[in-house]
Structure formats: structure tokens, C-alpha cells
């Protein structure tokens, strides 16, 4: 069980990963298919509802139509039967008015009647034994017809004074073509010569009229009307009477006999709708038969139509959603390509700002981002170059040959004057100075080292300038282990000496103070020299040399400021305050960084 579950699981995972990697999980696919499925679903439901409604309506109307047609046929037949009854009465009146049927007058009248109605085949008057009394058109009665055995004769005898209609049958009393007739017969009692005499008046009407009345009816393509005799269930008329006789067809007459209104039945595996209507006076029943599958044909047509529409819509929806999704995914893919290019290091790409709003925004952001990266890259390159240059310059400032030359000159002079003590001090200071300057190529050193470096520098200068100035250094204990950019003090001290003190009459005094100010480390260099004008002050940080003459120039000061800002940011740097003849104060502000922090930072880099 367990391996099986594992197997299933691995299979599922494989499937999912396949799914993930394939196009199935793409936006395009999701949009296309969810769209299509949704719309097709909606359409299908609508089609089903519509179809249902339509079918019901069609069935109802089919039933109604069938019934209406049957009613119509029935009215027509009734009408026909009624008119025939009238005719019969007219014939009866003309023929038997005076109890006699002889005479030209009667003949003439009957002939008129006959000629007016072409569907009357013959008028025959018989006595109760079947002997011919009179007929019109006059012809010989065939003895082989056996009139007394015929249905109409017997029913006329059975119920006298009642007009009875026979079933359609072949008239075989006269020579000539055999015709299908419906016989109207009635037993009439005629008073003749004071005696009652029973005669039978027979009027044969051509069945063709009724046949055509029923034949012309069409109920759909294959539907038809048939007529049955209500009393015995004999078929009076059926379009496929021959087939029924041959046993090739059958009709469910029992059901039609008892039914009223309409009912459904099944014949030869086909459902049919039957509408029934009785015809008054004649005792017949009309049954209209409509095939339900023809009604269903409309249903099938509707089905087919709906399916076609559905297919078309499906194709349409797929096309539209493909178009839609591709219009969405195309910019995304384009973006992907561009991103890949960026990944490879090509920052000079740009997305065209087009497509849907979101994509447009995204493209804009992307372009912004790439632009920013590009600028940052440029900036970094620029800064790095500058840094290198400044450091080189700082180094150069450090190993200022002028300074070295002056110092060595002083040393030589001191040696000449045998001031060995001072020579030792000077050389020692110089060597220490250079050691810290180089400091294994590090750019960051502790405040302690920086101060030591400044101290040595000041010592050497003090000796050179024959103790023209004093200096004092004071640093708070907690600042000594802080880190600082290398050689920030020396250019400022040099500046103070060269510009502040050298030309000063009084004994100069340089004070260096290191302390914390909030989260900043501050070096303050104060001298009591000549000071600077506002103009000079402002120029100092602009980078242009303040004084053309002399060893030091403002460039060194500017260099310090730039280095600090480059390294620590614009919040930091130099600040000057100066008053002519009073002196100058310079504040160097850098962030407080302990040695440990700096190590971490280096490690993380």
C-alpha cells in the first residue's frame, strides 16, 4: 500500500512539474480555456433552455394544428353529408309527392337534380322485395347484384323512415364501370291507391368527393387522415387501405374508437399524434395522424442549428481569447526577453511603451529601473575612478617632495649645528609619519593612528619653523578606537601652518580636538593665524586654489572634503569658520565607526 501511495505521489509530482513546465500553466492557456469553457457552458445552458422551450411550443402547436385540420375535415364532411341529406329529401319530395313516381314530370325533375350534382351516380327506387320500380338514369338492374342482400337495402328495411348512410362499397347493380359509392337509403311508406306500400329509395353518391376531401389533407409530410365507422370500427377511408388489406399496415382502430380529443400512439416504432373527431349524422369518426418525428425534425433542425452556432461561437471564443491572451502575454514575453538581456549585462535596453494599461505601466517601471541601474552603474564607475584618483593625490600629498626636501634640509642644518637630539627626533618623526602614511595600503585607520600621524607631522613642522607655533592635541578617550579615513588631518594642519601661522607675527598656536557630537565624530583644528576672508572661505570648498603661491594649496583641503563625502556621504565633510587676524577653525565630521564594525563591513563586502 505504502509503495503504491508513494508511486502515486511521485507520479502526481511528475505530472505537476510537467504541467508547470508545459504551456498548460501559461496565462495564455488559462485565459483561452477558462474563457472558452465559460462561454460554451453559458451558451449550452441557454441553448438547452431555448431548445426545451421551443420544443414544447412546437409540440403544442403541432397538436393544435392536427386538431384544427381534423376539425376542418370533419366540418367539411358534415357539410357535405348535410347537403346530401338535403338533396335526398329534395329527390324524395319530387319523386314521391303524389304517391306515384311515374310520369315525365318526375323524370325531368330528377334529371335536373342529377345534372346539377355530378356526384350523384344513380337514383333507384325499389319495392320491399327488391324489384326495380324506377331508376334514373334508367338502366337495367343486374340480377347478379342481389340487391336484397346488400347492406343499404337491409338497413332501410330494418329502420324505416330513417335515412341511413352505408359504408363505401362497389356499386354492382348496373353495367358499366364499378364505382365506389356511399349509398343513402331509406324505407318509405307510400300511400298508393289507398294502400300503404313500402318502397326503398336509394341514392348512390360517388365516394370520390369524400375520398378527395380526405386525401387532400396533409398533416406534415407523411401524416394523413382516415375515417372509421363508429358503430363497427370498419375503415371507411384510409389512404393506405390497400396496404392494410394486404397486411402490410395496420391501424389502431380500437383506440381511435374510444378516444376523444387527441392521443399519442406508436406504430412501426414511430410515435404518432392522433386527433379524433366524430362526424355528426353519418356516424363516422375522423382520425388525423401526424408523425411526431416530423415535429421532432424541427427539433432536430433547431438542435443542429444550435450546435452549429455553438461550434462557431466556440471557434470564435477560442480565437478571441487566443488573441486576447496573446495580446496580454506578448508584452510579458517581450519583457522577459529584455530582462534576460539585462541579466546578461546589457543595460541599454528599453521596452516600448504600448499595450494594455498595466503592461504599459510595467514597461515604464521596467524602463525606469533599467535607467536607474544604468545611472547607478555609471555613478559607481565614476566614483570608483574618482576615489582612486583622490587617494593617489592624497598619497602624493603625503609624500610631498617639497615637504621631504624641506625636512631633510632642516635635518642637514641641524646636523651642521650638531643638534643631534633634534635630528633624532625629526628623523624618528619622519619615519613614523611615513609608516602611518603607508599603513599597509589601508585607507581606514584608527583615530589614534591618525592623531599620531598628525602629531609627528606637527613635530616636524614645529622644528622646521623653529618653534614658531605651539600645538596641543586632545582626544576624548572613547574616540581613540574609532575609525577614520586616513590622512584627513595632515592637509588641514599643513593649511593652518602655511596659511595661518607662517605669516603671523605672534607665536602661533594650533589646537586639535577630537570629540563625539551626537553620532558624529568631530575633529576640530583651530589656529590663531591670519584667518580668511569670506571669499576665501567660500572658494576653499569650491576646489579652486586659494593662494597660488606657497607649498600647500587649497586643492589639498578640497581633496579631503571630497574624500570624506565620497566615502561617508554628503552629510559629512568639512566646515570652516574663520575671522581675519583671529584665526581659523575647521571641523571635520565623519560618522562614528568602531574597528569591529569596519571589519564586518569589509567581510560582508
Amino acid at each position, binding site marked *: 500500500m505504502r509503495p503504491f501511495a508513494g508511486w502515486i505521489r511521485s507520479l502526481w509530482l511528475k505530472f505537476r512539474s510537467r504541467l508547470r513546465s508545459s504551456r498548460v500553466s501559461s496565462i495564455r492557456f488559462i485565459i483561452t480555456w477558462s474563457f472558452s469553457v465559460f462561454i460554451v457552458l453559458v451558451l449550452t445552458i441557454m441553448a438547452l433552455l431555448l431548445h426545451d422551450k421551443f420544443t414544447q411550443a412546437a409540440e403544442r402547436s403541432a397538436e393544435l394544428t392536427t386538431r384544427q385540420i381534423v376539425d376542418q375535415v370533419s366540418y367539411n364532411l358534415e357539410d357535405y353529408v348535410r347537403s346530401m341529406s338535403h338533396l335526398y329529401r329534395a329527390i324524395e319530395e319530387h319523386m314521391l309527392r303524389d304517391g306515384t313516381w311515374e310520369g315525365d314530370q318526375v323524370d325531368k325533375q330528377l334529371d335536373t337534380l342529377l345534372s346539377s350534382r355530378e356526384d350523384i351516380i344513380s337514383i333507384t327506387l325499389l319495392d320491399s322485395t327488391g324489384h326495380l320500380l324506377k331508376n334514373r338514369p334508367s338502366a337495367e338492374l343486374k340480377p347478379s347484384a342481389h340487391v336484397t342482400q346488400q347492406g343499404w337495402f337491409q338497413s332501410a328495411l330494418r329502420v324505416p323512415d330513417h335515412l341511413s348512410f352505408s359504408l363505401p362499397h362497389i356499386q354492382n347493380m348496373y353495367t358499366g*364501370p364499378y364505382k365506389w359509392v356511399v349509398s343513402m337509403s331509406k324505407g318509405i311508406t307510400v300511400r298508393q291507391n289507398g294502400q300503404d306500400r313500402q318502397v326503398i329509395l336509394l341514392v348512390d353518391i360517388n365516394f370520390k368527393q369524400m375520398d378527395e376531401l380526405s386525401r387532400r389533407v396533409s398533416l406534415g409530410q407523411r401524416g394523413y387522415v382516415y375515417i372509421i365507422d363508429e358503430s363497427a370500427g370498419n375503415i371507411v377511408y384510409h389512404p393506405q387501405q390497400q*396496404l392494410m388489406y394486404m397486411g402490410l399496415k395496420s391501424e389502431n382502430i380500437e383506440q381511435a374508437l374510444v378516444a376523444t380529443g387527441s392521443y399519442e400512439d406508436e406504430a412501426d416504432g414511430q410515435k404518432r399524434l392522433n386527433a379524433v373527431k366524430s362526424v355528426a349524422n353519418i356516424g363516422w369518426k375522423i382520425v388525423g395522424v401526424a408523425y411526431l418525428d416530423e415535429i421532432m425534425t424541427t427539433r432536430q433542425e433547431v438542435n443542429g442549428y444550435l450546435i452549429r452556432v455553438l461550434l462557431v461561437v466556440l471557434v470564435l471564443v477560442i480565437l478571441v481569447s487566443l488573441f486576447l491572451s496573446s495580446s496580454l502575454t506578448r508584452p510579458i514575453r517581450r519583457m522577459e526577453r529584455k530582462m534576460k538581456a539585462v541579466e546578461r549585462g546589457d543595460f541599454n535596453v528599453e521596452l516600448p511603451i504600448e499595450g*494594455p494599461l498595466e503592461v504599459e505601466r510595467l514597461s515604464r517601471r521596467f524602463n525606469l529601473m533599467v535607467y536607474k541601474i544604468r*545611472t547607478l552603474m555609471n*555613478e559607481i564607475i565614476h*566614483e570608483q575612478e574618482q576615489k582612486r584618483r583622490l587617494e593617489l593625490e592624497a598619497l602624493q600629498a603625503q609624500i610631498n617632495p617639497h615637504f621631504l626636501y624641506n625636512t631633510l634640509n632642516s635635518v642637514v642644518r641641524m646636523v651642521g649645528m650638531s643638534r643631534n637630539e633634534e635630528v633624532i627626533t625629526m628623523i624618528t618623526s619622519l619615519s613614523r609619519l611615513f609608516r602611518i602614511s603607508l599603513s599597509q595600503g589601508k585607507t581606514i585607520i584608527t583615530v589614534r593612528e591618525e592623531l599620531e600621524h598628525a602629531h609627528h607631522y606637527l613635530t616636524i613642522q614645529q622644528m622646521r619653523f623653529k618653534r614658531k607655533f605651539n600645538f596641543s592635541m586632545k582626544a576624548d578617550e572613547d574616540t581613540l578606537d574609532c575609525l577614520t579615513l586616513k590622512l584627513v588631518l595632515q592637509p588641514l594642519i599643513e593649511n593652518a601652518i602655511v596659511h595661518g601661522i607662517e605669516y603671523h607675527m605672534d607665536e602661533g598656536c594650533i589646537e586639535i580636538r577630537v570629540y563625539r557630537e551626537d553620532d558624529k565624530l568631530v575633529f576640530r583644528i583651530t589656529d590663531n593665524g591670519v584667518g580668511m576672508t569670506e571669499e576665501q572661505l567660500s572658494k576653499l570648498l569650491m576646489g579652486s586654489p586659494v593662494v597660488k603661491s606657497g607649498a600647500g594649496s587649497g586643492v589639498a583641503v578640497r581633496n579631503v572634503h571630497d574624500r570624506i563625502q565620497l566615502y561617508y556621504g554628503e552629510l559629512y565633510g568639512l566646515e570652516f569658520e574663520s575671522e581675519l587676524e583671529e584665526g581659523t577653525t575647521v571641523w571635520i565630521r565623519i560618522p562614528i565607526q568602531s574597528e569591529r564594525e569596519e571589519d564586518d563591513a569589509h567581510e560582508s563586502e
Partner: protein
Amino acid sequence: MKANKINGTEWMGHLVMKINLCPRVGIIRMRVLLLRYMAMIAATCCLLLCVACGMSNAEPAGSPPRIALITPAGTGELAEAIRLGAEAAAKEAGAELITVEAFPSEGLTYAPSNPDFTAGQGKVKQEHLQNGTYLLSEREQAQVDAVSLAMEQGASALLIDPLSEKALSDIIQKAQTKDANGVIIPVILLNDEFPVKGITSVISIDNVEAGRQAGQAMAVLMGGRGRVALLGPDPVNPVLINREQGVEESLAQYPDIHVEAQSVCSTRDACWQAAKQLLDEQQVDGLIALQEPASLGAADELNRRTSENNGNKVKIVGFGSEQQQLEQLQEGRIQHLIVQNGFSAGYLGVNQAVARLNNQQVQARVTLETKLVSTDNMFWMDNQKLLFPFVQ
């Protein structure tokens, strides 16, 4: 590094401010795009719907198969009954029936005085023995031509009662070779049997059985003893040969019935003469007329004899249900008629054709029942419908 980050953020803020101006342009462009999409979709929709509607309209609901009935397909009223049956079946199966006249009946030597009497067409078949306007070969040709005409009119099945074996083989050859689509047009034979290959189906009565029925009826009429003569056999026509065979088979069971001479004749007048000669020469108790004119000729002779000297009781058993035969039957001149149902023949013929066209199973031979009708039962309701198929 930190300084750079700060720098960047500010710079971005600046740009974002710039961007804020853009959405209006974007919305407008979006709207234009949307409009374009919608227009495109709408256009495609319309187009496809039109196509769909067109499809539904243009799509034929399967054009009905066209079945040709080559007339005259039989003789007289039988032919009419066949046509009616074929029409009924065609209507029921949703097929189209076309009738092609091989040769006009008006052009024949015998024109019926009353159009309702179509019995005259019965003469057509036997006419070649007389001097008719149309020779047999001409009529055969006419029938073959009618088949060509039917095929030109797009008939996909043929119902035919061929004149002769030769005509039939020509027709079948035509039906099998002419078709360009590689589909053989099925030929369905009505009321005839010829030993020709390639016939799809034969709708016919069992003539041997019909002959047996006739012989049996005659035997019963004569009470099992007497002399019987056959009138109107034809040594060429397979139908008549079979009838004759059936009659002989059934009469052979009655040792007291002797089958006398056979009189070959094929028209009413010829058969009348033949019957006259026969009755003059021999004492005959019963006549079995194998074809319609023979029974009429025999009836004529008997009528003549009856009017001359009463008491001549010769029984006649015939085949067919022509108007005049029925009149003679009603009068009792002819005692029995073996009747076949032409309506069924036409109906089943079309049914078979439709079945064949729909690739359903087809019966190679459909045997129709025959019915023995006598003077007494001819006006029974069922028989009326059989004998008088049309409302006149």
C-alpha cells in the same frame, strides 16, 4: 554606497511624479485598442453567424432518392394499381417517384373507348403476334430508351416490368454500365421472372402456386372429375409456363380429371376462336384461362353458347382482375379468378428500391400472395378493396 541609494530614491520619486502625467494618454490608447478589438470581434461574429446560417440554409436535408417506374409496368388496371402502390410507398419513404412512359398507349391499335377501361393496355404485350403498329423489337427498344430517359432524369433506381428477356438484359446492361459514379442502379422487376443476372429484386406472385390454386379451384368446381382444357399458354413466357406447370401439378392429384388439349392464343378474339374450336371438337367441363384475354375469350364463347342453347355448364377459372373479367365473374360466367395485388407489387418494389439505396438488406425475391375470388365473395368488403383499388 548609502549615499547612492538615497540618491536613487529621490531620483525615482522625481520620475514617478513625471509618470503621473501619463495615464490619461494610456487610457485613451487603451480605449482605442479596446474599440478596435471589439470591432474586430463583432465583424468576425457577424461573418461566422452568416456562415452558420448559410450552412443551415444551404444544407440539403438529404435530397430524396428518385425512383423511376417505367410504364406500362403491367397490364391495364394492374399497372395502375402498381403505380398507386409505388406512389404510396414513395410518399411514405420520402422518395420521389417519376413515371416514364415507354410508349404511348394512345398509339396502339387498340384504344379504349372509355378512358376508365384501361384493360386495353393488356393488349400491348401480346400484340407482337398480331399486326400492331409497334413491332416487338420497337417496343423493346422503346422500353430501353425509356430507361435511358429515366436515368437522364436522375433516377437512382428502376422499377420495370420488362417486355422480354432481351429487353431486360439490355436494360440491365445499361443500368450497370451507364452510371458514372460507379454506383450500379438497382433494377427491380415487377410481375415477371426472367433468368437474367443483375436484378436487385423481383416482386412477383408465385406463378406455380397461382397455377396450383387455379387447378385446385377447378377440381373443386368439377367435383373431382371431368375434362379440363388450358387456354392461352405461351411456351416463351416464363410466367405462363409456370402457371401451366402449377395447374398440371395440382390436377395430377385428381385421377378422374383429364387435362385435354392446350389452345395457344393471346388475344381476346383469338382465344374466343380457340375456345369455340375447342368446345366444338370436344366435351370439356372446365377451362383454365392462363391469361386475361384468354379468360375473356372463353367467357365470350360461353356467352354465345348460353344464348344459343341453355344448359351448357362449362366452368372457367381465370387469372387477373380486369374490369371485364370482374363483370363476367359477377355474372357467373367465370367462376373463379386468381387475383394478384398490383398495389402491393408497386409498394414493395419501391420499398425494396429505397432499402437498396439506403444500403439495407434487400430481398432478392418478394413473393406476393394471390387470392382466389369467386362470384359469391367478390363483393365482400375485403375483396372489394382488392378488386377495385381506385375510387372512380
